[in-house]
């Protein structure tokens, strides 16, 4: 099936070349970072994780979201999703690869990365995170590839694939739980030290991931000319809506706990993110309010059935949702976690240009991987007449 990668329209090649260019820019910038260290980033002694780890966190969610297609299809026999499951699985592969790259570029000593496996440390959540990410990548690659191959030859997938799929459902929940456990078990980081963090992560993942998937499918279906299926879109948007409601609800639970308890340490991060400090408003405050407006806006457009089923409005609603969840997790979460320093001072952070260029390069790698995988899937499905 790999040969499908090589046969495409000029536009397809131009797209890949464009992504290749971005990857090149990111890679060259990364060489500078290797030489001059993480001093090229905006991180500091008090803000030791920044844009990279935030993107990693967000993208684990995107990866995990494939389960929102797999679960209804395989646990409840919902057939409408079967056609698009492969796109979710292949998007998960791209997302996991981006996650891994974001971890690597965040390391001070990437050449020693294998120490995590050479000296396995079972009390460190990072060890488990590495394991579950590698496992999830393998699961999705094997399941995706095998089911697509079977579709191509028009045979029923072997039984063992089914067991792998069941495993992948549980695995998807676990990858994002483990990611949340990275931060939610740290004493002294008030914004993260909350039992609902993992639940918040899952809720945010299960709305943001499918929303991004649906948006991308809407774009690709125009280029490749195929139908996603009305029923599938309807059901998926309902899933997205419920997950987003839950996501916002859990966030408001955090707000209540912090402010009703009136414990300063718990109020500080939210106060910093939404109201700034005595010294003024940090840049992230503007983003947080945009995020809040986008979150409410997306729910206004998604909850009423008449609006949700309007195909002209839907892409806007989904776009707002993706932006809102990205601001919450891809910006606010890490900044809010570090903003009150261990000395109860405000620690500011803003990503630098090299940091953003490297991140852009990694996003381009993800887009590249997803592009060629989706190209294979679309071509195979078209040949088999299943699209």
């Amino acid at each position, binding site marked *: 099936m790999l040969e499908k990668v090589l046969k495409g329209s000029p536009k397809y090649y131009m797209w890949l070349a464009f992504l290749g260019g971005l990857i090149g820019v990111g890679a060259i910038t990364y060489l500078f970072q290797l030489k001059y260290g993480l*001093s090229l980033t905006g991180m500091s002694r008090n803000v030791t994780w920044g844009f990279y780890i935030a993107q990693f966190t967000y993208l684990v969610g995107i990866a995990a979201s494939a389960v929102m297609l797999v679960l209804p299809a395989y646990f409840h026999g919902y057939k409408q999703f079967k056609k698009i499951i492969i796109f979710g699985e292949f998007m998960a592969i791209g997302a996991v690869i981006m996650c891994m790259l974001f971890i690597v570029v965040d390391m001070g000593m990437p050449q020693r990365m294998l120490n*995590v496996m050479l000296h396995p440390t079972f009390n460190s959540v990072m060890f488990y995170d590495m394991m579950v990410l590698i496992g999830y990548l393998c699961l999705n690659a094997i399941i995706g590839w095998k089911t697509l191959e079977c579709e191509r030859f028009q045979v029923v997938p072997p039984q063992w694939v089914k067991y792998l799929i069941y495993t992948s459902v549980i695995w998807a929940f676990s990858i994002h739980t483990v990611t949340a456990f990275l931060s939610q078990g740290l004493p*002294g980081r008030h914004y993260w030290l909350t039992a609902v963090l993992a639940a918040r992560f899952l809720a945010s993942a299960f709305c943001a991931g499918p929303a991004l998937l649906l948006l991308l499918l809407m774009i690709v279906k125009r280029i490749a000319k195929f139908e996603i299926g009305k029923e599938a879109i309807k059901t998926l948007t309902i899933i997205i809506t419920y997950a987003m409601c839950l996501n916002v609800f859990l966030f408001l639970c955090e707000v209540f706990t912090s402010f009703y308890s009136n414990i300063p340490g718990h109020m500080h991060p939210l106060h910093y993110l939404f109201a700034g400090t005595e010294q003024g408003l940090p840049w992230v405050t503007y983003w947080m309010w945009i995020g809040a407006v986008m979150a409410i806006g997306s729910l206004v457009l998604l909850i009423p059935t008449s609006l949700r089923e309007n195909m002209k409005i839907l892409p806007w609603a989904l776009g707002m949702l993706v932006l809102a969840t990205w601001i919450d997790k891809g910006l606010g979460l890490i900044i809010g976690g570090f903003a009150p320093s261990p000395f109860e001072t405000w620690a500011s952070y803003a990503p630098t240009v090299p940091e953003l260029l490297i991140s852009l390069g990694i996003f381009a790698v993800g887009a590249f991987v997803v592009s060629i995988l989706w190209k294979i899937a679309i071509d195979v499905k078209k040949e088999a007449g299943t699209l």
Partner: protein
Amino acid sequence: MKRSRRQFLKVASLSVAGLGAQLAAGGMTKAAAAVKPSYKEDALALKAKRWAMVIDTREFTSKEDFDACINACNTAHNIPHIPGKTEIKWIWKDAYEHTFTDTTNKYQSKEIEDREYFMLCNHCENPPCVRVCPTQATYKLESGIVAMDYHRCIGCRFCMAGCPFGARSFNFTDPRPYIKEVNPKFPTRMIGVVEKCNFCVERLDAGKLPACVEAAQGKIHFGDLSDPESEVRKLLEENFTLRRKPSLGTEPGVFYII
């Protein structure tokens, strides 16, 4: 075509399995062969079950008092002088409200509030940094000291997110150009690793007290917390002391006489 691919996969998977088995077997023999380390302890080495520090904050009145200790540490451990937000520090001073963040009262004694206080790694009994480190580059010694292997650290900075005391520094840049005079008795660090106070474990092993304790000339005390007869225990019994953020349960080993 299909047959040959299948054959290839068979051979390939068998090779991988064989290689894995060999590695596993190698690991086991290695473990079996593990013997006690062959190094000899220095006869002078100072020993304790639980090293702890008691800082008499009443005695630190001038800038010179603090600088003597800070400079002694900086020289002993080749700590670079990097200005700004990416600085490296093992021991430093700060105001009361930044040191004892959860023990601040309004209308407190002006004298106590205006005093400055040392901060350094607390060498906790339940160190979160050891718990989170994915490579055991940070680990606890039998003497209670939280030590680091700079050659194993991958620079993930998980320990820095985990430490509630802000005791750790990261080498955002190559530290060597920022060291005025290199002390050949202690290794310099490389770019991309975390570092922190080590309670002068290298000096204890040679029978000497930590550099800051020595430089403090009696204003900082150091000893075995598990020994009821030790000087630090006596000081704790006789004086009112504070520790930083005790509610987090990490059990810091640095005490402050107020």
